[in-house]
């Protein structure tokens, strides 16, 4: 009896204990770059296959700076762990972060302003790309890879079904209906409720501006006219069963993809690499086309995904870390590794080098792959800005949209719900938010 009661209390209380054990104190001790004697050792967190060879090359060419690379998980995991580690005062010196999480990391006081060290590489990037990491003159990282949005499609199946990649979203709807008619088991595309970044990109292409900031006053537009119109467009496709509403990259989805039952993925330049990972047998069958436009003749696209290499505020070697961040993303050898492994470099020189290289394996037979890629990269929308609580927005979006898809309630209501939650969260924290 006594034992069971104690076991009960222990089990009950350990919930609280586990959570508390992972928490931390206050954030952000400032540090200055110190002149180091002997080689400086940097801790570096990043995910992805390109990092290991890049870091090895850096270590070889820099005897005075040695970098220790750790893969702590994908973009979301790295961001979450970096926050916790920073508060505990034992974060790394440098870390990769997705562009969309940068503002929230800045607000959390996790990142160092490295504008003092980046003057010499600013021109190595296009202004649109440089704006992804710099805010009001402060620089919070060096862009690493970017994902201009394109339509990735199964060309072989397109030819079998005698269809062409759509140029506008209106065409996209028509082609979607055509596909359903020609092969009732096949869908042109998937609408995945969890794809927050994808939807944000599509909305931005339509003219939406999800976050804007001026003099520390924010404007949130997650449910603005353009976003609602995009929601209504997909709603129409889902209601008529023209696209499949289900999560991406599940065993289920991969299986359908391999059977040629999912024909496109409107996503970004990194997608061929991802698809190759799950549908190796279809190498050469796929191709990319410009992302469909809302108005015929337009060529505007947003970025989806991509990451920057940042320096943390807790680093005692900010200057060395900045040197590392610059080399990793502007050096020829580093860019070459990126291109070889299918990552689209953020730097202009890297993008130029990519033009003359072979297309990724999934799209190996497409001769104009890099022409289309370069064109997409040159027409990205400038000044995309993300908010200070993107992760909250992302999780709210996923839950609201998944519920809407499941219960057949309007997607536009899900967007409004997300918007309200994001604004309420910002107000609780103390941000000034203009408008509703």
């Amino acid at each position, binding site marked *: *009896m006594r034992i*069971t*009661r104690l*076991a*009960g*209390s*222990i*089990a*009950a*209380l*350990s*919930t*609280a*204990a*586990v*959570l*508390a*054990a992972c*928490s*931390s104190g*206050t*954030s952000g001790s400032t540090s200055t770059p110190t002149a180091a004697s002997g080689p400086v050792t940097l801790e570096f967190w990043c995910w992805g296959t390109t990092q290991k060879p890049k870091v090895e090359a850096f270590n070889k060419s820099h005897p005075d700076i040695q970098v220790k690379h750790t893969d702590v998980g994908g973009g*979301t995991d790295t961001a*979450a762990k970096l*926050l916790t580690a920073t508060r505990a005062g034992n974060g790394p010196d440098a870390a990769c972060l997705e562009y969309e999480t940068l*503002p*929230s990391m*800045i*607000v*959390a*006081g996790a990142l160092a302003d490295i504008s003092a060290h980046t003057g010499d590489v600013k021109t190595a990037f296009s202004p649109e790309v440089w704006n992804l990491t710099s*805010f*009001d003159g*402060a620089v919070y990282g060096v862009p690493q890879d970017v994902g201009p949005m394109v339509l990735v499609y199964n060309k072989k199946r397109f030819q079998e079904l005698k269809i062409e990649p759509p140029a506008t979203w209106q065409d996209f709807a028509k082609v979607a209906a055509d596909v359903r008619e020609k092969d009732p088991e096949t869908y042109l595309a998937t609408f995945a*409720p*969890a794809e927050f970044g994808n939807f944000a990109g599509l909305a931005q292409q339509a003219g939406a501006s999800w976050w804007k900031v001026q003099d*520390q006053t924010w404007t949130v537009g997650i449910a603005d006219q353009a976003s609602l119109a995009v929601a209504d467009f997909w709603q129409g496709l889902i209601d008529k069963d023209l696209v499949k*509403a*289900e*999560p991406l*990259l*599940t*065993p*289920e989805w991969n*299986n*359908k993809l391999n059977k040629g039952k999912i024909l496109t993925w409107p996503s970004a330049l990194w997608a061929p690499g991802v698809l190759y990972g799950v549908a190796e047998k279809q190498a050469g069958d796929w191709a990319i086309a410009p992302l469909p436009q809302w108005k015929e003749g337009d060529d505007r696209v947003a970025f989806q995904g991509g990451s920057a290499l940042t320096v943390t505020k807790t680093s005692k070697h900010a200057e060395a870390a900045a040197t590392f961040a610059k080399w990793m993303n502007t050096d020829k050898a580093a860019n070459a590794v990126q291109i070889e492994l299918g990552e689209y470099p953020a730097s202009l020189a890297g993008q130029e080098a990519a033009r003359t290289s072979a297309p990724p394996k999934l799209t190996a037979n497409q001769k104009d792959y890099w022409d289309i890629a370069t064109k997409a990269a040159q027409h990205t929308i400038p000044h995309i800005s993300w908010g200070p*609580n993107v*992760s*909250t927005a*992302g*999780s709210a979006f*996923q*839950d609201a949209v*998944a*519920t809407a898809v*499941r219960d057949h309630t309007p997607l536009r209501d899900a967007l409004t719900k997300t918007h309200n939650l994001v604004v309420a*969260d910002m107000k609780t*924290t*103390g*941000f000034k938010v203009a408008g509703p």
Partner: protein
Amino acid sequence: MTALPRAERRSRAPYLFVAPAVLLFVAFLAVPIGYAIYLSARGLRLTGKGIFGTREEVFVGLDNYVKTLTDPGFFAGFGRLALYGLISVPLTLGLALLFALLLDHAGSRAKRFSRTAIFIPYAVPGVTASLLWGFMYLPSTSPFSYLTRELGLGEIPFLGAGGIYPSLANIAVWGGVGFNMIIIFTSLRGIPSELYDAARIDGASEWQIAWRVKIPLVAPALVLTGLFSLIGTLQVYGEPTTVKPMTSEISGDWVPLMHIYRDAFVRDDLALASAASVLLAVGTLVVSVLLLKVTQKRAFGGMQ
């Protein structure tokens, strides 16, 4: 060696003996709990520094508790949990008891093998089990759906709106039966065989022995396993989290612990998560004590 006076030695000894336990308790239980409670009264609020301002930790009183208690999402999680528990707890206990009785039955064969076979799923880590079952649920990889499709019956919506509760409960039942069976079985082995002999002399059948002798005598074990299952249900996290990417049915706050995880590590609000976990811990404690109080007389009346 200078010996201490007898009385002093005696007064010190007990403290020395309990010191390791107390130290461990303080370091790994009391301090973290205290910190969680402290953290639940804090919150990250904006201060003017930096280009966007910087979020810093300040005292916010009971804000986090108010926010948690007024969040319908948090309570909806308990609703889902109740539905899940209604399926998984009775099934786990019922099957565990059934298997234990069968193994204990004098006439059953291959006992050692059966015992191991039933216990083995418990040794499979929860995440592995969830992935395994996840594959068996997804329409295009599911052997069950393959069969029904071949028979022209269509696919079984394991991960659909109606199927998700039994599907998830099934993972827990599959993994939990073995452990609970062992507890009940051990308790059965402890029953003196004179009781069976007496029952047999009185003319009881095997069925009556099971129902009137064995089950009442293993009641304490049933209460214990029931309590563990109840607490286990309140702490459901791994299975739905692992299956989440496979379906749109499971939201980020599907059960209370997922809600807490999301607040802490996705939305970066450790303070809010601490408040919710303190509430969950207190709730679990209250439910456990109530369950024990209610079952105490019945289960332990004749034993203590």
